[in-house]
């Protein structure tokens, strides 16, 4: 059984030969510094290269993915022709304006870029039409996409995941508006929130339509997402979520499923347990990352409650265990996850979020080696 078969079986809630592993996506990759340390540890003499400038993460290379036993491979968007990454040195640090006009700053002290300028903070609905939106038809976004997807699909070795999140329609909307303003408007200026979400969703779907037209048939999973929760609870009430987000999630999922047989993955950090039934209802197939230390997000309880109705992807704690735990702690965490969430398939394992710069490389290896050691079906009773 190869990686692709293993991956597909798991997403179909079947037990393959072992629980599949992921690394390299929008929210499941690794910081460039940690990656370089991991390369040293593996005896590989090259430096990690930043792939995602915003988060200073890499797209791991084939030799590392093979060594770790990663079962997924990613197809990423190309770079737009109409915008170039040009960081400017300011007295506060490196500053970048992205293709949406949002400003990001990386002070010397910071490990990545942070949103500091939201161009639509004071805009009214009428300003939205005149705003210089990025062009979803910019052919640069499609550079290399179809070829990479076709090659991966034809080789048939790995699960093929389309990372066309483009920072997603939901997160993009609040980045343009500024987060606090956006959340206030959900109560005090609802029309604006509907208008800006309609705009970002339509741009997102336009781009996604272009992408799926050239490679939809090659993909196994498509990434969608947007953070809906914090550590203890959802950021907005379930009712507010149902008013603004859910109908658009449903629209996006339907759009995707009309164009490809790929399953839909939704990323939201935090304590989203009160929304999972809604996710299932709109047709989301996979929940990421299952932030296990957030309230109500224990993987065992969620598996018991949802069984084969939604697959879980993630599950290894990145708030305490990966950065601060020992190798033995990581192994215990992995075994706990496998014991309680892997029965009957429906689980893909990776860290709860991108592996950060404070995670020891030994712990990264312990995660991947641990799943390969203890994640074989039938699962051992001694987990």
């Amino acid at each position, binding site marked *: 059984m190869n990686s692709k078969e293993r991956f597909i079986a798991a997403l179909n809630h079947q037990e393959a030969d072992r629980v599949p592993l992921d690394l390299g996506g929008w929210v499941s990759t690794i910081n460039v510094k940690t990656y370089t340390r991991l390369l040293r540890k593996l005896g590989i003499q090259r430096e990690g290269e930043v792939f995602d400038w915003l988060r200073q993460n890499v797209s791991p290379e084939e030799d590392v993915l093979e060594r770790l036993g990663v079962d997924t491979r990613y197809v990423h968007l190309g770079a737009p022709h109409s915008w170039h990454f040009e960081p400017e040195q300011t007295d506060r640090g490196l500053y970048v304006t992205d293709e949406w006009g949002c400003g990001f700053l990386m002070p010397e002290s910071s490990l990545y870029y942070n949103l500091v300028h939201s161009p639509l903070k004071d805009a009214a609905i009428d300003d939205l039409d005149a705003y210089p939106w990025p062009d979803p038809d910019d052919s640069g976004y499609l550079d290399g996409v179809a070829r990479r997807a076709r090659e991966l699909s034809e080789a048939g070795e790995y699960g093929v995941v389309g990372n066309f999140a483009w920072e997603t329609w939901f997160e993009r909307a609040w980045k343009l508006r500024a987060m606090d303003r956006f959340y206030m408007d959900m109560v005090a200026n609802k029309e604006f929130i509907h208008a800006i979400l309609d705009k970002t969703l339509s741009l997102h779907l336009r781009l996604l339509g272009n992408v799926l037209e050239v490679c939809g048939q090659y993909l196994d999973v498509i990434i969608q997402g947007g953070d809906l929760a914090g*550590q203890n609870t959802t950021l907005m009430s379930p009712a507010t979520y149902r008013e603004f987000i859910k109908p658009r999630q449903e629209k996006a999922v339907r759009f995707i499923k009309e164009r490809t047989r790929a399953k839909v993955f939704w990323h939201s950090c935090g304590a989203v347990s009160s929304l999972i039934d809604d996710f299932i209802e709109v047709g989301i197939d996979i929940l990421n990352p299952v932030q296990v230390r957030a309230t109500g997000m224990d993987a065992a309880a969620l598996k018991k409650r949802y069984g084969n109705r939604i697959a879980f992807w993630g599950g290894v704690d*990145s708030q305490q265990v990966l950065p601060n735990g020992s190798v033995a702690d990581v192994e215990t965490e992995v075994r706990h996850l496998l014991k309680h969430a892997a029965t009957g398939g429906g689980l893909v394992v990776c860290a709860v979020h991108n592996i950060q710069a404070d995670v020891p490389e030994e712990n990264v290896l312990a995660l991947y080696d641990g799943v390969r050691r203890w994640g074989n079906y039938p699962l051992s009773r001694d987990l």
Partner: protein
Amino acid sequence: MHELLIKINDAVQKRQQAELVPSIEAAIEAGLNPKAIIDDGLIAAMDVVGSEFSDGIIFVPEMLVSAMLMKQGLKLIKPLIAGGSDEKKGKVLIGTVKGDLHDIGKNIVVMLLEGAGFEVVDLGVDLSVDQVVKKVAELKPQIVGLSALLTTTMPEMQKTIAALTESGFRDQVKVMVGGAPLNQAFADSIGADGYAKDAAEAVSLARRMVSA
């Protein structure tokens, strides 16, 4: 309680934006004590808002709007208090530690502390140890609040506490810490005086700290 105070309280608590300013103006007109308007109208309302937030009855959007209304109200009433200076519950210096630019959670804590009548000096984000020490020396707060979202920046909290000790200010301030990846055990391990898991808890903690 006077009917207008109930109206002001309701406007903040139930986010009735159109009611707030007219009710406050009417209360001032009626000669109600400005301090009572603040305490029984605004602060009492934000207490309810804080516990509703903590109990999962309301969420970030509602909380932010209530806090905004409370601030609007304070702006109207403050000039009426003798000499422009009102009696504060205590002074809190607060910020997100170095390397961390996340501030939504910290901003909510600021709003609730202000809503509870504290004087809050928000030092912003990416706060160096030296900035904290300098501001403590200058402003002499009772409480220093430190926030972090990233596991990679949590160690800055310990460094800040160490710097306060070295500079001789540690016993003059209480240090409270918060942020998604933190817990009480971490707070204890770095020698913080308190940890709060959400903004409403931060207010209770601050109240305990200044009354201790």
